[in-house]
Structure formats: structure tokens, C-alpha cells
């Protein structure tokens, strides 16, 4: 990786982090758990990396198996995370 692209990626990192700080302002306590669960599902974005890791080489290599393990785990995180969050938030609406 060149230094120029590192600088651009660092810009992205700094701005996105700042945005993350700003996005959470006055969350009502009832939304703490759903928000945690929902953002946990977003951190499953590592699934993108897992798919790319699965794309490498043939079978029988450690990297391929690690990629496939990562893909299964990340999919559980993404699918389970969003489904559970949606279930929680659905309950909310009924109560109101």
C-alpha cells in the first residue's frame, strides 16, 4: 500500500469515527439494547472481507479454510444480528 492511499484511508477513518460519535446523541434507555444489537450487525461488514478471502486459491490451503470459517461466522453475525434486532423493535411497536 502506498503512503498516498494510506492517507486517504486515514481521512476516511477519522471522518467516519467523528460521524459515529455524533450519530449517537440522545438515545432513550429503552433503545440501548436494540441499538447495540443493530450496530453489532453492522460490524458484521467483515463479511465483505470474508467473501474476498474465500475467493483466494484452491482448497487445502490454510488461508482458504480461514476464509470459509470467517464467512460462516460473519454470516451468523449479520443475519442473526439483524433478525434479532428486528424482533426486538417489532415488540416495541406492539407495546405502544
Amino acid at each position, binding site marked *: 500500500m502506498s503512503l498516498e492511499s494510506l492517507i486517504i484511508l486515514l481521512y476516511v477513518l477519522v471522518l467516519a469515527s467523528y460521524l459515529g460519535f455524533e450519530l449517537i446523541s440522545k438515545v432513550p434507555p429503552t433503545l440501548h439494547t436494540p441499538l447495540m444489537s443493530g450496530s453489532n450487525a453492522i460490524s458484521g461488514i*467483515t463479511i465483505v472481507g470474508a467473501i474476498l478471502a474465500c475467493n483466494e486459491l484452491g482448497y487445502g490451503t490454510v488461508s482458504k479454510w480461514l476464509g470459509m470459517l470467517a464467512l460462516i461466522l*460473519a454470516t451468523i*453475525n449479520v443475519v442473526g444480528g439483524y433478525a434479532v434486532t428486528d424482533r426486538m423493535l417489532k415488540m416495541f411497536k406492539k407495546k405502544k
Partner: protein
Amino acid sequence: MNIAIQFAYLIASVLFIIGIKKMNKTKEARTGNQLSALGMLVAILATVVQVQSISLVEILICVVIGSAIGLYISVKVEMTQMPEMVALFNGFGGLASLAVASSDYWLKTQELGQHVGPIIGTSAALSIFIGGLTFTGSIIAFLKLNGKISGKPIMFKGQHLVNLLLLIGAVVAAVVALMNQADSIYIIALVAIALVLGILVVIPIGGADMPVVISLLNSYSGMAACTTGFVLNNNVLIVSGALVGASGIILTQIMCKAMNRSLMNVLLGGFGQTAS
């Protein structure tokens, strides 16, 4: 990389941002979550079109297995068990980041015999360390809430010293690994230290404080995804990881305040029982 794919990643990032924003309000929260799920779908599709067609089969198999497990857990779980489920999923996410980073590192240094530069090397080491710590930490949090292990703080003499030594050990292992990339033992040592440290950091914390810890670990798994983005030179991983990392820290602080505790207090551990 293709411009259309980059554009799809941009759309995904925007959907995540709007999604998190909407989840601040009770009325819009569900829509927010759905928007963020849509963003994830866009990101996944944009990635799948990049892979070689031969790899599609195993990718599909892994996705089907993961989806089935994820859906099964999410349907079966009781509403009262939500925090521990988040902890479990979060642990999987952390382990996934560790696996992606070490897969890429292993491919380059062990299988292709290349030498990775300091930027990618450092990012991979960070991703492995944070991901491993998140994994075992989350599993301990899950087991504590679940009652499989005692919710009481588990302390021993010199605990903080041991943690500090492990942290130093992790830094040393990472530095030595990057200097001797052909030798795989150091990177394996880094994985081992991260896994042990995750256990030791969470066991002294009481069950009542677990939601705060899970929120913090959630933030960590975001950071792990972010550092994985640096390894793979991938914007969407960096943006989403940073969003989760930063918003997770803020949410952790808000939760601490709601419980009348300071974050430092929670992390040093041992007080959780009195708070209940």
C-alpha cells in the same frame, strides 16, 4: 477496482449512517434497522460479483450455513436473553475479523512467500489482536449472563499485572512476527495471547455490568472490522467499522451514566455485584 462496485460500497455506507441515525428514535428505529440491513445486502452483492465463478459454490454453502444458524438462534431466543445473544453474535463477528486478517496474512507470508509492508502488517496484527480479544471476551460475557459460569467477579492476585504483561507480550509478538514473516509461530502466539487476554479482561467484571461490557466489546468488533479494512484496502469496511467503533464507545458511556457508574470503574472490575 471497478467504479460501480465502489459506488455500491458508498451507497451501503450511507445506508448504515442513516440506519444508525434513525435507531436513535423509537418510532423510526425499525426502519433504521431495515435500511442498514439493506445496506449490508448491497455491500454483499457488490462483493459477490467480484469473485471467480469457481469460488461461488463454497461461498454460497458458507452463507447458507451461516444464515441458517443465525436465523435459528434469532427465532429461538427468548426476549429476556437478548443481551447474551448480542454478546454471542458479537463474539462471532470478532472471530470472523481475526480469521479474515489472518487468512490474508497467511496467504501472503506463508503460502505465496511474499513480504507484507509495515502498513498492512500492523493492520493485520491489530485486527488479529482486537478480533481475538473480542471473541473470547464476548463468549465469557455470554456465559456469565447465561449462568453457565458464575456472574460473580472472578479475581485473583496480580490480575492487572498479568494483563499488562500479556499486553506487552502481544506487542512484542506482533513486532517480531512482522520482522520474521516467514516464521509463523509468532503470529500464532499473537492469536493465543489475544484469546487469553479476552478471557482475563472480562472474568473480573460482575454480571450486572455485563451489558456495558458487551457494548464496549461491540465497539471493539467494529474496530476489528475497521483494521481489517486497512489490510484489504477496502473503504466500506473502514467506514462501517469506524462508525460502529465510535458510536459503540459513546453508547457505552451513555449506558454507564444510566447505571451511575464510570467506565473505568466497570473495566477495573469486581464491583458488579453491588450495582445489582
